[in-house]
C-alpha cells in the first residue's frame, strides 16, 4: 500500500524499492497485482485505520526499523496535525526519545516538533512531565 502511494506521489519503482528496502521486481509484482494476498491487503488497510498511536506502534513492532516505519506511517496517514510546545517545556528530551517518527528536536532547552512528520500518536504528550505539548488534528476541509 505504501508503494502504491509513493508511486502516486510520482516516485519511480526503483526509488520505491530502495526506500522500502525491497527487491525492485517484488515491488513491480505487487504493483501489478501479482503474488498478492488480498487477505493481507485487507489486514494492512485495517491497520492503517487504527488510531494513530496503534498504527504507529504496531508498524514499528512489525518492522523494528525506525526509518521504514517513518516512511510507511507518514505515507499511509491521511490526516495532518499541528503540534505546539508551550513555554513550560523544561527540555528534558523525553519526547525526543519517545517519538518514533523522529519529529522532535531540542532547541535551546525547548522541544520543537516538526508538524509535517507528526502523525498525531500523542505519545510525546503522554510522557511530557510538564504537560507542555498540544497536538491538534488539522481540518483539511473534509
Amino acid at each position, binding site marked *: 500500500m505504501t508503494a502504491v502511494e509513493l508511486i502516486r506521489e510520482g516516485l519511480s519503482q526503483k526509488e520505491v524499492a530502495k526506500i522500502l528496502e525491497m527487491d525492485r521486481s517484488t515491488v513491480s509484482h505487487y504493483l501489478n497485482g501479482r503474488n498478492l494476498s488480498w487477505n493481507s491487503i485487507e489486514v494492512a488497510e485495517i491497520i492503517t485505520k487504527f488510531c494513530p498511536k496503534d498504527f504507529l506502534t504496531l508498524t514499528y513492532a512489525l518492522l523494528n526499523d525506525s526509518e521504514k516505519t517513518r516512511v510507511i506511517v507518514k505515507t499511509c496517514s491521511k490526516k495532518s496535525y499541528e503540534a505546539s510546545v508551550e513555554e513550560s517545556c*523544561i*527540555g*528534558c*528530551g*523525553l519526547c525526543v*526519545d*519517545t517519538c518514533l517518527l523522529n519529529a522532535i528536536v531540542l532547541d*535551546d532547552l*525547548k522541544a520543537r516538533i516538526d508538524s509535517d512528520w507528526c502523525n498525531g500518536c500523542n505519545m510525546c504528550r503522554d510522557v511530557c512531565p510538564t504537560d507542555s505539548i498540544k497536538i491538534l488534528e488539522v481540518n483539511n476541509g473534509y
Partner: protein
Amino acid sequence: MVTNTKEVKGKDICVQRVSPEEKRELAYKDDVCVGCGICAKICPTEAIELGEIGAIERTGVDESKISIDEAKCVLCGMCSSACPVDALDLKLDEKSIKDMAEYPQLIKSAEISDDLCIYCKACETACPRDAITIARILPERSKLVTGEIEIDKDTCISCGICEEMCPADAIEMEHHEPTSSDPTVSSDITVNKDKCVYCLICRKSCPVDAIKAVCRSCSYGDYDLNPEDSETTGSSFIDEEACVNCGWCQEICPVDAATVEKAFEGELILNQEKCEACGACVDICPCNVLSFPEEEFGVQGDKLQADERFCIYCGACENVCPVEAIEVKRTAVKHTPTKSKSWEKQLSELKT
C-alpha cells in the same frame, strides 16, 4: 518505551536514560553534597528528596543525603545546573551540561592569582573544605647570609661544644674512640657553609678560640646579597570539586590574591530565642560560617554567631535545625542567561 535505570554505588547515585537518540546520565556524588536541598527544591517532577541530613551528619547514619526516584526523574538537568557545589552532573552523550552554553550555569568561581600570591598558606589553612594546596619553594638559606668561617684544626681540642651549640646544625665532627695509634677523640671537624648562618655562636663558645668567623651581613648590610634570592616561589591549586566558593581564602589573603564569586546573595537570620545550641548547624555548614564562641576561657558558649562574609546561602543549616531557629533568605540567584522560560522561572524560584 524509554525507561530510566538507577545504579547506586556506595552513597553515590547514577540515573540513566538510553535511547537510540542519546544517552542521558545524571551522576550524584555524596561526598561533595552539602545537604542544602536546592536540587529537591528545583526538581520539576519532585523526583529528588532530601534525606535526614541531621542524623546523617551527626550520627553517621549510612545513607545518601538525597534520594532520587528514577520513576519520576526525567533527566532534565535542572538539579545539576542549580547545585551550588556541583554534587550533581547531567551528561548528554558523555558531555556535561555544565559545558554547554544553552544550559544556564550558576555564576560562581574561586581563583588565586599566582602573580599576587606570596605563598603564605593562610588560605590553605583557612579553607573549610581543604580545597586549596599551596606548593612553595623556599629561598636557599645560604644565599640570605654572607660571611666567613674557618676552624683552626691545630688549635681545636675536639671538645664538640660548637657542634652542640650550633643552631643551624652546620658543624659536624667525626667522633671516634681514641686508640694507641690515634689518641684523638675526633678525626675531623667540618662546617657546612650551606647551613651556616654566621651567628658566631661557635666562635663565642669555643674554649680555645679555634674558630675565626665573621658575619658580613651585619657589618656591610645587604650589599652583597641578591634580593631575588630571598623570594619564595611556588604555585597554588584549588580543587574545584571540593571548593564551595565560600570566600574564606579571599577574606584571609593578606595580598588580595584570591577572588571568589558567589552564585547566591541573601541574608542569614538567626533566632537566638528559639536556638537550643545543639550545634547541628555548625556541623553541617560547609563554609565554617557558624560557631558558638567561648564565653570565657575553656567554656563553650551557647550563643550562636554567624559571619556572613563566608555564607553561600545554600540553606543546609536551615534544613538541619530542629527548632527552626535559622532562616536563610536568598535574594539573588546569579546564572548565565537561558532562552528557556521554564528554566528561568525554576531558577528564580530558588529565591525566598
